[in-house]
């Protein structure tokens, strides 16, 4: 049933125990995202050295989907190069979108491509909630474009 697919245990776990929660005193960039239609908030601090995300901290408030997506994202990008993060973000976007190319996730090897993030696939059946899952990623995009400039 769709609801069980949406609210997978790993999602609830990230929702209740968000990883990398807080702020960074040595942040190189800071970005904030807001979903005006539902009020969900997400903020992101990144420490970047030599093109690598060396540290991440997030804060937020909102539904299980937006907050779990943020927590999983933080996990996934920490220690990655900016290029790897770009690829990750692309794969995530393709996974979540209904019509944009083939889903990169391999059903035979769950977690192999996008780790915990793959649990968010269930959101695709709930089009109005996709923007929840997207919020941390649009905030990340904002942070990265700041880092570039």
């Amino acid at each position, binding site marked *: 049933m769709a*609801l069980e697919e949406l609210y997978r245990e790993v999602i*609830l776990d990230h929702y209740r125990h968000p990883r990398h929660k807080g702020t960074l005193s040595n942040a190189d960039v800071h970005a904030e995202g807001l979903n005006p239609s*539902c*009020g*969900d908030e997400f903020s992101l601090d990144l420490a970047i050295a030599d093109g690598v995300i060396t540290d991440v901290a997030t804060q937020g408030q909102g539904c*299980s989907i937006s907050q779990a997506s943020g927590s999983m994202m933080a996990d996934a990008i920490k220690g990655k190069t900016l290029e790897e993060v770009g690829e990750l973000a692309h794969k995530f976007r393709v996974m979540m979108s209904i019509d944009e190319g083939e889903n990169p996730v391999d059903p035979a090897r769950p977690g192999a491509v996008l780790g915990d993030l793959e649990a968010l696939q269930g959101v695709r059946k709930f089009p109005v*909630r996709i923007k929840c899952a997207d919020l941390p990623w649009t905030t990340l995009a904002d942070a990265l474009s700041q880092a570039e400039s």
Partner: protein
Amino acid sequence: MQQVRADFPILDRLVNGKRLAYLDSSATTQKPSQVIDAISDYYRVYNSNVHRGAHTLAAEATIAYEDARTKIAQFIGAGSSNEVVFTKGTTNGMNLISYGWGLNRLREGDRILLTVMEHHANVVPWQIIAKHTGAELVYLELDEDYRVDLSNLDRFVDDRLKIISVSGMSNVTGTIGPVPQLVEAARSVGALMIVDAAQSVPHLPTNVAEIGADLLVFSAHKMLGPTGIGAMWGRPEILEEMDPAEGGGEMITDVRLYESRWAPVPHKFEAGTPPIAQAVGFGAAIDYLDKLGMEAVRRHEVAITRYALDRLSEVPDLRVVGPTDLSARGGTISFELGDIHPHDVATILDQEGVAVRAGHHCAKPLMRYLEVPATARASFYVYTTEEDIDQLVTGLYRARDLFGLA
């Protein structure tokens, strides 16, 4: 009221394979066939622009448009249909007032008194006018049972106080606003008294003569009528004095190149082609509510709210954000369920056919004041049944299960 459901075609619909339990009437109500058909008939039989009546269709449309005005006037106990102005809705009505009264009259240091439970429609227009004029906003807070706390009222009642504007009923907590007390306060210093009646006119018997306020605004779509129209009632002297916010056709007696003369009230506030079909639909909604009787509507809502509060009190970890006293509230129940975010609650309920709203309900200052990021909200109307409430409660247990609440 069980039999009214048959008049609402949408209630036969399935949502996600389930019976629809529509519990979002504070956002907008559903419409009976009588209203839907009145609108179609208008377009099929006598659609025309109004007030320029040189031909039969124009005369028919004008009569229907003005009849709707008369029905609304009678429905709220106005002395004359000239006291009723058609607007786009409550928000538009509040802006007509803030511009039409405030822009030319408010001065630096003047005060506008609101409450922290106001809808954005009764906050943002005043912020805009305050910025233009230098006036300032002041707020009343709430007590522990979510009612407006009047213990500080005296502090604000002085000659700086120029406007009081308060909700007749909160769309979040269901709290009925302290209109009589604020009317008295406004009178004592000659301030303008405005009621945001978006939630009160649809749900409570309303008599403007008894209320004693100066202006009252509400929306058709929250009382069985169509979207795109609302009404502003005003005391004749006030409407006479107030400036029109918008300029255009129909609101003038004469236009010259460099100046114009306004038409008499209410037309001076109705610039341009009005929402004609919507007025006709609004009139049909009034007819429908008149037939039910607003006393009966209120009784039904008290009964259904009592049932809902009882049933919700059974649900573990559920906290109602609003008054417990039935006489102090209407049929709008905001709540939180454990640590499940309201959006998740709403999504799960939606899968069960239950339509509730989740979020800030256009009342961010209230959310901050209550220190909740959002609430889920179930809101009722004439067609709401105990079966709807039962379906809600079943859905809430499902949410608990999914989120592993013990």
